[in-house]
C-alpha cells in the first residue's frame, strides 16, 4: 500500500512560545518519526503554521531544513496567510487559533489515520505499538493520557526507558469514560472518515482556544462515536507559559487570558462546522521551500458569527461523567 498510513497533524509558528519552542518541536518530531519508522509505520508530518511571525523564517521552512537528513519521512508543511487570523478571530487577546490551524492540517492530510497532537508531545511505547499493530478500529476516537515531564528535562537524552521512569513525571493522569478527557488536544487519533464526519474541531466558537479539545470529544460522544483509551500515555515536554502551569494567573480575570475564557460551555454546547471547514476554499500555491501557502481570500473566511451552528449534543445514557 503506497502513501503514509498515519498523518501526524501539529500546528505552530516560529515565535519562541514557551521559550525553546523550536527545539521542543524538532526533538519531538524526530523522536516520533523515528519510533514510528522503527515499527514499520509509514507516516507524514503535517505542520499547519498559523499567523506566521512577520520578518522571521517560517517554522515550515525551518522544519524542512531540520528533517532533511531523515530519509523516508514525508513532511507536509502548510503556511496560512496571516490575514486569516485577523479575519477570523473573535477575541483580540487570542494570538493563535490553534484548532482552526489543526483543522487546516487535518483537511490537507493524506493518510487514512489522523493523529492531531502538539509539537512538544512524544509518543509512548504502547501508543506506537497500538498504531503499528493495525488493531485500531475505524469509527473510534482514540485518546491517550498526557504525562508531563519535569520542567527543564534534558531533551537530548529522551528514550522510552527514561520517559517511562516515574521519577521524570510531574503528573500521571488517568482518563475516565465516557469522554477520556484531560489534555485532549495532545492526542486525538481517528480514521479520516471520522474526522470528516465530525468536521474537525469547533470553528464556530473562536473566542477561546481552551476547551476546544474537550468540545471535540463532547461532539464525538454526542454523535455516537465511541471514545477509547489507546492503552498508553504520551509525554509532554513541559515548558513555561503552558496552559496547565499558567492558568492560575488568570483565575480571576478570565476574559484577559491569552487562551480565552475557560468558563465557556465547552462541555455542554457543540458545533456544526461549515462545509469548507479548515479553510477548505482557500486558494493555495507551493512555495520554493516546498511548503503549501494558503493565500488570503475573503471567500474562504467563514462568517464572523453563525449562531445556527451552535448546537446541543445528543444526550446519551450516562455511563460516566460527560
Amino acid at each position: 500500500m503506497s502513501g503514509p498510513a498515519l498523518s501526524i497533524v501539529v500546528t505552530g509558528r516560529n515565535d519562541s512560545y514557551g521559550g525553546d519552542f523550536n527545539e521542543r518541536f524538532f526533538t519531538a518530531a524526530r523522536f516520533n518519526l523515528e519510533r514510528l519508522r522503527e515499527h514499520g509505520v509509514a507516516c507524514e508530518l503535517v505542520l499547519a503554521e498559523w499567523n506566521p511571525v512577520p520578518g522571521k523564517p517560517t517554522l515550515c521552512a525551518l522544519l524542512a531544513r531540520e528533517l532533511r537528513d531523515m530519509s523516508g519521512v514525508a513532511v507536509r508543511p502548510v503556511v496560512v496567510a496571516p490575514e486569516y487570523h485577523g479575519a477570523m478571530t473573535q477575541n483580540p487577546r487570542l494570538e493563535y487559533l490553534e484548532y482552526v490551524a489543526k483543522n487546516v492540517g487535518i483537511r490537507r492530510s493524506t493518510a487514512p489515520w489522523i493523529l492531531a497532537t502538539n509539537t512538544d508531545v512524544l509518543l509512548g511505547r504502547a501508543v506506537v505499538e497500538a498504531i503499528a499493530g493495525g488493531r485500531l478500529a475505524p469509527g473510534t476516537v482514540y485518546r491517550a493520557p498526557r504525562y508531563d515531564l519535569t520542567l527543564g528535562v534534558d531533551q537530548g537524552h529522551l528514550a522510552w526507558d527514561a520517559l517511562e521512569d516515574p521519577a521524570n513525571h510531574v503528573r500521571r493522569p488517568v482518563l475516565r469514560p465516557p469522554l477520556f478527557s484531560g489534555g485532549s488536544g495532545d492526542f486525538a487519533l481517528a480514521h479520516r472518515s471520522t474526522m470528516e464526519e465530525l468536521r474537525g474541531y469547533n470553528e464556530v466558537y473562536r473566542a477561546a482556544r481552551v476547551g476546544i479539545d474537550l468540545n471535540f470529544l463532547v461532539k464525538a460522544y454526542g454523535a455516537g462515536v465511541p471514545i477509547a483509551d489507546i492503552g498508553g500515555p504520551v509525554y509532554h515536554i513541559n515548558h513555561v507559559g503552558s496552559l496547565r502551569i499558567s492558568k492560575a494567573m488568570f483565575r480571576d480575570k478570565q476574559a484577559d487570558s491569552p487562551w480565552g475564557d475557560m468558563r465557556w460551555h465547552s462541555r455542554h454546547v457543540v458545533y456544526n462546522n461549515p462545509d469548507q471547514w479548515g479553510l477548505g476554499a482557500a486558494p493555495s500555491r507551493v512555495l520554493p521551500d516546498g511548503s503549501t501557502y494558503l493565500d488570503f481570500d475573503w471567500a474562504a473566511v467563514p462568517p464572523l458569527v453563525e449562531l445556527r451552528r451552535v448546537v446541543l449534543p445528543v444526550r446519551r445514557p450516562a455511563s460516566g461523567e460527560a
Partner: protein
Amino acid sequence: MKRIVTRTLAHLGLAPAGHVARLREEGERTTQKLHEIEQRVVQFKADAELWKRRQEETARRAGEQEQAAARATARAERAEARAEELKARGDALAAEAKEMRARLQEANRSAGTVREHLMATETKLDLIEAALQVLDARTRAAVAPREQEKLRT
C-alpha cells in the same frame, strides 16, 4: 411333755415365760410397726393435703393464664387490624412517593433541558458580544487613518 405343760398353763390362764417374752417382743414389734404405719398415714395425709393445695394452685394459675391468653389474643387481633390499616396507608404513601419521584425526574429532565438551552443561548451571546468587539475594533482601525488625514489637511 412340753406340750402337756403348755396346755396345763393355758388352762390356768398362764403361759411359759419364754412364750410370754416372745409374744411381748412380737407385740412391741407390732406396736412399732403400727406406729410407723400411723406415722406414714399421717405423712400420706399431709402429702395428699400438699398435693391438693398444689393442684388447687395449679388450677388457679391455669385459670389466670387462660384469661391472660384470651387477653393476648384480643390484643393480637387488635394489632393485626392496626397493621393492616398501617400497611394500607404505607402502600398509599409508596404510590404517592413513586408518583412524586416520577414528577421530580420529569422536572429534573425539564430543568436539564432548560439549562442546556440556556447554555447554548449564553454561548451565542458570547459570540455576539465577541463579534461586536471585533467589528468595533475594525471600525476604529478603519476610521483612525482617515481622521489623521483630515487633521493633516
